């Protein structure tokens, strides 16, 4: 996991930067260095459309002068530039106001063990191999149904990178990770018009990526079933979220559980810790140590060890997502959820965040609905994190007598996220990780559907 993937040892660069900050009078500092390379291949209609290749590096430094602090980042690692860089950020820190809560985590909280988490696969794909994979996925999509007449293309990306974090408490940690992804977006058409959907696979280990044929066929299945979609009348009905869109409900929960949203008063979950926010069959975990997970890492953006924790247990809210700063603001310890963009102060976010599957098969959930909506796509940003008010554009299928009757589009679904979580009726058995956030099928008792 700690093997070097670049020729330069950036750990010495990181430590050099900490020394320079200290020389400028900084009382504490931390530095994050990231480097990586990416090869992205896009094909369309059986031919290469776009090739993108890049190697990049970036460094971010945060300095403290007592309780004043500032952050900066640069891609210029030359000695002269670094001198100026450190000087400027130190000046910046001294221009802002003291914040009594600011500071690095305590020394004793920092990670000391770095277990193997299977997030780096050294497989190097050749450009032609990636082209072939993308072409196979697109070809499979076309072959699966004659109504596929066009395509937004297939894409195969590979990337690998390394993160180094060091701070003035003497912490030095690094890890490498990799990612391989394959996707295709076919377009189906009939007399009524065109529909597009897509499907994808993503994994940290190349050998575990789904086959291009499986991805292409699933993309086509999802696309052609949308043909002939229509509006439905405005009504209040049960709504089933397929796993892809159910994941978005978990994302909204993450935003509301972020310590930053909470202490600013910008979350609908303020004061809910320890309260029942969902029925007792709802349990949600955040697990930063899941082997091979897309959100897995040995330590968080401040150097604290990641861990597995219940966020919601039997419907009760057990934990927020906190870093050191937002935790202090709320009078709570960090949960090891510091997220960090290079050159920014930490924020708080999920690692691998998922809802524990139930025992009901998705088809049985469908069968429980006499009239309702099965949602497969959501668009728009109609979510108010302060109030939980929810109103988004949706498409999917109308359910009649427990079966998908016909595709629907140009409708909205609306409710309030608090209400939606507390009226979850059934959780499916179909949990699959396809990202950092994953959910099984979810049925919500009732939402307002706006259409004709």
């Amino acid at each position, binding site marked *: 996991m700690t093997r070097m993937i670049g020729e330069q040892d950036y750990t010495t660069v990181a430590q050099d930067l900490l020394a320079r900050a200290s020389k400028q009078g900084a009382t504490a500092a931390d530095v994050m260095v990231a480097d990586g390379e990416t090869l992205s291949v896009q094909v*369309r209609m059986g*031919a*290469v*459309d*776009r*090739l*993108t*290749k*890049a*190697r*990049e590096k970036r460094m971010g430094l945060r300095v403290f002068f007592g309780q004043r*602090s*500032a*952050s*900066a*980042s*640069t*891609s*210029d690692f030359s000695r002269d530039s670094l001198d100026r860089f450190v000087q400027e*950020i130190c*000046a*910046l*820190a001294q*221009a*802002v*106001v003291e*914040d009594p809560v600011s500071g690095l985590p305590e020394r004793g909280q920092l990670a000391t063990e770095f277990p193997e988490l299977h997030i780096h696969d050294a497989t190097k794909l050749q450009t032609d191999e990636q082209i072939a994979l993308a072409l196979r996925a697109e070809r499979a999509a076309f072959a699966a149904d004659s109504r596929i007449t*066009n395509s*937004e293309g297939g894409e195969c990306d590979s990337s690998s990178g390394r993160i180094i974090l060091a701070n003035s408490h003497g912490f030095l940690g690094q890890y490498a990770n990799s990612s391989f992804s394959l996707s295709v977006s076919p377009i189906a058409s009939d007399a009524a*018009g*065109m*529909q*597009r959907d897509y499907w994808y696979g993503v994994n940290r280990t190349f050998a575990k990526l789904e086959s291009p044929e499986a991805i292409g066929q699933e993309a086509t299945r999802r696309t052609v079933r949308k043909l002939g979609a229509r*509006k439905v009348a*405005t009504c209040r009905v049960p709504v089933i979220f397929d796993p892809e869109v159910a994941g978005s409900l978990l994302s909204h929960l993450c935003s509301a559980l972020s310590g930053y949203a909470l202490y*600013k*008063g910008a979350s609908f979950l*303020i004061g809910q810790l320890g309260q029942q926010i969902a029925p007792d069959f709802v349990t949600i975990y955040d697990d930063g140590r899941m082997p091979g997970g897309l959100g897995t890492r040995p330590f968080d953006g401040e150097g604290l060890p990641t861990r597995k924790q219940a966020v919601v247990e039997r419907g009760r809210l057990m934990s927020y997502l906190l870093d050191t700063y937002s935790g202090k603001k709320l009078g709570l310890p960090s949960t090891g959820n510091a997220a960090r963009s290079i*050159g*920014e*102060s930490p924020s708080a976010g999920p690692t691998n965040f998922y809802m524990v599957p139930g025992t009901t098969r998705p088809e049985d959930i469908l069968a429980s609905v006499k009239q309702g909506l099965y949602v497969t796509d959501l*668009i*728009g*940003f*109609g979510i*108010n*994190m302060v*109030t939980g008010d929810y*109103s988004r*554009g949706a498409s999917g299928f109308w359910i009649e007598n427990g079966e998908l009757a016909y595709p629907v*589009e*140009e*409708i*909205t679904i*609306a409710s309030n996220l608090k209400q939606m979580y507390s009226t979850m009726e059934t959780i499916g058995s179909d949990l699959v990780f396809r990202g950092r956030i994953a959910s099984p099928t979810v049925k919500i008792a009732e939402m*307002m*559907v*706006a*259409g*004709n």
Partner: protein
Amino acid sequence: MSNNESGALARFGVTDRDIEQALGRVKVSAVDYADLYFEYCQSESVSMEEGIVKRATKSVGQGVGVRATAGEKTGFAYSDELTPKDLNIAADTARYIANSVQGTAPVPVTHRPALVRNLYPHDRATIEVATRDRVTLLNAIDAEARRYDPRIKNVMAAYNTEYKVMLVATSDGLMVGDIQPLSRLQVTCIAEENGNRQVGTFGGGGRIGLDYFQNDQRYLRFAREAAREAILNLSAVDAPAGVMPVVLGGGWPGILLHEAIGHGLEADFNRKKTSAFSNLMGKKVASDVCTIVDDGTLPFRRGSLNVDDEGTPTSRTVLIEKGILRGYITDKLNARLMGIPVTGNGRRESYQSVVLPRMTNTFMLAGESDPQDIIKSVKKGLYAVSFGGGQVDITNGKFVFSASEAYLIEDGKITRPVKGATLIGSGPDILKQVSMVGHDLKLDEGIGTCGKEGQSVPVGVGLPTIRIDEITVGGTKA
């Protein structure tokens, strides 16, 4: 510093010879077009919350993107190092799509037009404002918002600036540079009363400096507007659900045009025939009262550019004229493949991303109706004046955008404020529902950021007050 290529070239530390050789290396006979895009970008952000300015960040980046196009294919590589060696590696990678050995004859870059205009002349000092001046501004915003109403419990504000220097050299022999400043001030207020908490936001900016916000104490108006919206939402009732007439106010509600029309008219989607607007050129797609343009030439506007990222001067492109579809938004690649004019809309987020046809400032021209008459014409409907984000599915044409400040119209009068709701419609149909257009064209405050293929670029929108006879409103009240 003037907005021309000589200053920019010196900054990047590359010579004419380096550029001409790298272009020569990539522009082999199988390559139709190649370009090198150099960029230096410095951005700074200072933010305030809980009455104190506690965060300051600064980011500096520079690099070069090398691109080659052959037929429909694009090869692209970028580097954050600018040595001749790195330029050549990037050139070789971009050329990979042409399956060809490297070129040896340098491409002379002889056409170096001076900018015919500078849409955003600036004093660099007003962009790279001293941190203490930013702090003063944000503190005053906090005080103003809290003074507006004691129910304002938290004020968050951020002042962001960007100073970008770009230089593009193309295989057509063109070399042109530009300096593109960008500033934005954003205020968010949270109001609370008896356990009811609501949010209000307001922001604006453009290719301008600090003086813009200081003029007439504009920054204090931003604070009051954010506070006003939060307080207003304390008394908002549930939004209605279903199909009804909707009146959109002027300015930012122009996001309707961006989502419903603009994206669907970007040339790449139409070349690939994946847009709901494919094959509708010359056809009626809107009512007679609708004329819509994309205009990158408006002085100081957030979406404006002297030249696009391929060195083409921006222009005013008529997209829809009196209801008839007239034009697409193009970059060089798609214009060449479609045999249509280049409109100066080739844009990229940074040297790390490829050029795509993108909007600049998109708006509807003023009509003849009195805005008051438009509201009076509605018996029962919605009046929406401010929006959050929007999104569109290019292929089936369905778009959404979400109101953050809206009111019920009852018997021709604006009555109660309603909670935010998403509006959904179909791009090729919605403008046929526009029956009245006000004489009050307003451009937005300068807050828009458009996302496409993972790339964000600043854009503007504008709209007069309009009446849409029928659109689906996604409220919670039957």
